[in-house]
C-alpha cells in the first residue's frame, strides 16, 4: 500500500512584480510505499527543496497532487494545516532546528505538548525513544552543551515522538562529521527496520546508499531511480556514483 502518492507535480515561482517565471518543478510523479526508505538526490537548484516543502505542506504546488494515505494535501484548510503536519509528519533538518531555550527533553516533547498531550503521558512516550536513540543521559542538558550528532539524534527523537506516518529529512547529515553521520544513518536504518517510512533529501551519496530506493531529480523532473534490490550498501553506493557522474556529464534521460 502506498503511503505517499505524488502525481504530475508542478511548481512555478513568479517574481513579485509579475514577469519572470521560474519553473522549479515541471513534472514530478512517484509513490512511496509504507515502510520504505527513500532518498531523493539532485544538485543544487534541481528542485529538491521545493519538492520537500510541498510534501511538508509548507508550500502549495502550482499543479498536480500530493496524497498522504489517500488524503489530498491541497484539500486541507490552512487553519488545520499545522495540526495535520504535526500529527502526520515528522521533520529532521540539516541545521537541527532545536530551540536553545529548551532542554533536550523539552525539545523532544515539544510536538506532543503542542498536540495537547497530557503531562502525565509525556514521560512514558519519551523514555523508550530516548533510550533507543542513546540520548537518555542527555535529557537534562541543553542544545549548546551537546555535540552535533547528539543534536541530530534529538531532532530525530522529536520527529518520532508523535508516531508520524512519514518522516521527512532534509539533508540530515549535512552538518555532521563522518562518525556522527554513520551513527545517524544507523539510527535511520533501525527505525526504518521497525516499519517507519522515511523520505530523505540529500546530497550525500553515502547517506543515499543506506536507502531502499534512490530518486534522482534534475531540472524539476524525476530523472532516474535506483532500487536497492539485493545490493549491499557498497554496491548501491557505486550505482549512485555512476548515476551522478552521468547526471553531471549531461547524459540523456533513459
Amino acid at each position, binding site marked *: 500500500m502506498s503511503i505517499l502518492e505524488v502525481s504530475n507535480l508542478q511548481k512555478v515561482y513568479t517574481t513579485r512584480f509579475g514577469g519572470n517565471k521560474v519553473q522549479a518543478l515541471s513534472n514530478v510523479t512517484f509513490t512511496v510505499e509504507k515502510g520504505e526508505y527513500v532518498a531523493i538526490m539532485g544538485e543544487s537548484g534541481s528542485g529538491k527543496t521545493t519538492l520537500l516543502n510541498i510534501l511538508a505542506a*509548507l508550500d502549495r504546488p502550482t499543479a498536480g497532487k500530493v496524497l498522504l494515505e489517500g488524503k489530498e494535501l491541497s484539500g486541507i484548510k490552512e*487553519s488545520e*494545516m*499545522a*495540526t495535520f*503536519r*504535526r500529527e502526520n*509528519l515528522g*521533520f529532521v*533538518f540539516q541545521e537541527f*532546528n*532545536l*530551540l*536553545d*531555550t*529548551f532542554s533536550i527533553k*523539552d525539545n523532544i*516533547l*515539544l*510536538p506532543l*505538548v*503542542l498536540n*495537547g*498531550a497530557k*503531562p502525565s503521558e*509525556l514521560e512514558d512516550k519519551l523514555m523508550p525513544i530516548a533510550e533507543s536513540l542513546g540520548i537518555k543521559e542527555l535529557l537534562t542538558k*541543553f*542544545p*549548546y552543551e551537546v555535540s552535533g550528532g547528539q543534536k541530530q539524534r534529538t531532532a530525530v527523537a*522529536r520527529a518520532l515522538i508523535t508516531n508520524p506516518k512519514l518522516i521527512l529529512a532534509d539533508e540530515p547529515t549535512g552538518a555532521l562529521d563522518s562518525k556522527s553521520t554513520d551513527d545517524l544513518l544507523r539510527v535511520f536504518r533501525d527505525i526504518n527496520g521497525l516499519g517507519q517510512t522515511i523520505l530523505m533529501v540529500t546530497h550525500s551519496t553515502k547517506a543515499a546508499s543506506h536507502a531502499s530506493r534512490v530518486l534522482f531529480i534534475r531540472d524539476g523532473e524525476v530523472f532516474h531511480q535506483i532500487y536497492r534490490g539485493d545490493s549491499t550498501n557498497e554496491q548501491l553506493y557505486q550505482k549512485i556514483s555512476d548515476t551522478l557522474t552521468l547526471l553531471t556529464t549531461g547524459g540523456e534521460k533513459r
Partner: protein
Amino acid sequence: MKLGLFFRLACSNIKKNHQLYIPHILAGTGLTAIFYVMLTLANDQRLRKIKGGYAIPSIMSIGIAVVAILSVILVLFTNSFLMKQRTREYGMYNVLGMEKRHVGCIMFFENAISTVALLVAGIFCGMLMYKLCCLFICKMLNVETILGFYMRTEYVLKTVIAFAAMYLLAFLWNCIRLARLRPVELLASAGAGEKEPKTKWIMLLIGLGTLGAGYFIALTTESPLKAIPDFFKAVILVIIGTYALFLAGSVAFLKLLRRNKGFYYRRKNMIAVSDLLYRMKQNAVGLASIAILATGVIVMISTTVCLYTGTEATIKKYFLEGEADMLLSGRYGYDVEVPGSDRETERHIESIPEEKLREMTQQIVGRYGAEVESFQLVRSYSDPICFTDGEAEVVKLRSTLTTLPKGTIEVIMLPLEDYNRICKDTLVLKENEIGWVALSEEAGDLAKELPSEISFGGKKYTLGPEVKHIPLMRSEAIAAGYYGLVVPAMEDLDGIVKNLFRKENGASWYYYNQTSYRYYVRLKGVKEIAESDAMAEYGRRESADEFEKLVEAYLKELDPDGKKGYFEVSNWETSWSLRDELLGMYGSLFFLGILLSLVFLFATALIIYYKQISEGYDDRGRFQILQKVGMTQKETKGTIRRQIVIVFFLPLVTAVIHMIVAYPVIRKLLLLLMMPNDKLFLLCTALTVVAFALIYMVIYRLTARTYYRIVR
C-alpha cells in the same frame, strides 16, 4: 584620499543602520535640548524679575545635575548597544583587510557625524523649546508673557562642550573595545547558544530583604517629620530591591513554574516560560530601569501637579478658610539673657496694642487703595506633646532625625473665647475642662487614647466634649496625630504654657515655644492692593517692608534703648504674596517635574526600543523553528505577543505597586509642603498613572512595529 573614503563609508554605514542610529540621534537631540533649556532657565535674568519667578533658577539648578547624570548613563547605554550590534560589521572590515586604526577611523567619522547632527539639532530644538518654556512658565505663573528671543553663546557653548565630551568618552571606550577584540571573535556568530540563567539565591534574598525593608519603612512612617529621611532611605532600598528582584526573582519564579510539570507541559505555557527565562536574563536590568524611571515619573508629576493645582486651596486654608486676606502674627518676647540662669523672667513688658496695630495696617493698606474691614485675634499655643499617664510633656526636637516618643501628638491649644469667635460656635466649658477635636486624618479618638484626667505640669484638667473643626493650619507637621484643644480661658492657656516649661530648668527653647498671637485681617479692595503692591524680592511684597519699618519705628519710640522685651508682630503675610510665592515655588517644581519626566521618558523609550530590536533578531530564528516544528503562524504570533505583553507590563505594574506603597509617605511629605487635601493628591496620582500608562503604550506600539518588521 583615504580619509574621504572612510568618511563616505561612515556616511553609508549610518544610512544602512538607520534603525539603530535614528533613535540614538533622537535621544541625543532630546537630552541636549533639555540640558540647554535648563541651563538657560537657571541663568535667565528676566525670569528672576517676574512675579513668582524667584524660585526658577535654584530649582532648575537641581534639575541640571539630575539631567547631567542621566545623560551620561544614557549616552553610554546607547553607545554600548550600538557597538554590540555593529561588532560583526567592524570585524568584517578587519577581515577584509583594513587595519584596526582604519576601522577606528571609520568609527570616529560615524561618531563625529552623529554627534554633530544631534548637537546641532539639539541646540536648535533647545532654542525653540526655550521660547515655548518661557510662554508656558508665564502662563503658569499668571504673568504677562516675556517677549523676545533670549540666547547666550555661553550656554550654547557649555551645552555643546558637555555633550561633545560625553560622546568623546563613549568613542574612546569603543576604541578600547575594538583594540581588545580579535577578528575571529568579531566575526563569531551570536548564535553560539546562550547558557541557561542560573538562579542567584543570594541576590534573590538581598532583593526580597531590601524591597521588604523599603516597603516597611514607607508603610510605617508615622510622623511627617520623619518622612523626609525615611522617604530617601526607602527609595534607595526599593531601587536596590527592584534591580535584584528583576535579576534574580524573575528567574527563580520562572524556574519554579518550569518545575511544575502539570503547568509547564501545556501548549500555552511551555514556550512562554522557557523563552521568558532567557528574555529575563538579557533584559532584567533594562526592565528594572524602566520600572524605576516609571515610578520616578509618576511620583514627580503627581506630587508637583497636586501642589500646583492645590495652590488656591492652600491659600484658602492658610487664611481662616478664606475668611481673611492678611495675617499678622507674632509672639511675646521674654527678656532672657542667659538661658538657664535665674535671671529668666517673665517681663513681657509693653505690647503693641491692637488698636495701634490696626491703625498701622490701615495706614499701609490705605496707600494701596484698600481698607481694613475686620481685625480678629486668635491666640494659640502649638507643640508636639507626649502624655505619660495623663501627664503632658513637650517633645523637644533637636534635629529632623529625632525619633518621637511613642504616642506623641501635635496639639494646637486656644482659649474658648477665641475658639467660639473663629468657629462661630457657642460652646461652654466647665472649669478645668478641655474640649478637643481631631484635625488630621491619622488623629483618632482622643478620649480613647488619653485618660479622662490629664495634667499639665501639675494642673489637672478633664477631657471634655468633642468640638467643631478648628480652621487653623498647622505651621509645621511633626507628628501624625494633630489635635485641637480648647481651654476655658486665656488664663488657663497661659498657665498651661508656663507649667509645661517650668519643668524645664531654664531651657533656652522657650522663647520660640510660646503662645502665638495672630491677627486675621479682612480687607476691602483686595484686588486693588494685590495689583499695586509690587514685588520686593523672593515673593515678598513692598507692603511687608513698609509694615516692618512702621513696627520698628513704634518700638524705638516705646523702648529707645532696646532693653525691654516687647511684643513683636512683624510677620506680615498676605494672600496675594503667598499666592505669588506658592505659584512660583510649585510652578517651578511642576515645570521641573515635566522636564525631568521628559528625560525619563526618553530613557524609557530608548530602553524599550533597543530591547525590541535585540529581541527581534533573537526571536526571528525561534519563530521560524517553531513554525517548522508544526506551530501555526497564528499560534506562534500569539505566544510571542503574550511574552511581549508580559515583559511590557511588568515594569508598569511594578511602578504602580511602588507608587501605591509610597503613597502614604509621600502624602506626609506633602503635609510638610502645606499640601491642602488628600483627595486632590489621590486624584492627581490616579490621573498621572493613567496618563503615564497611555504614553507608555504609545511608546510600546511604536517600537513594537519595528519588532514585528524584524521578526516577519
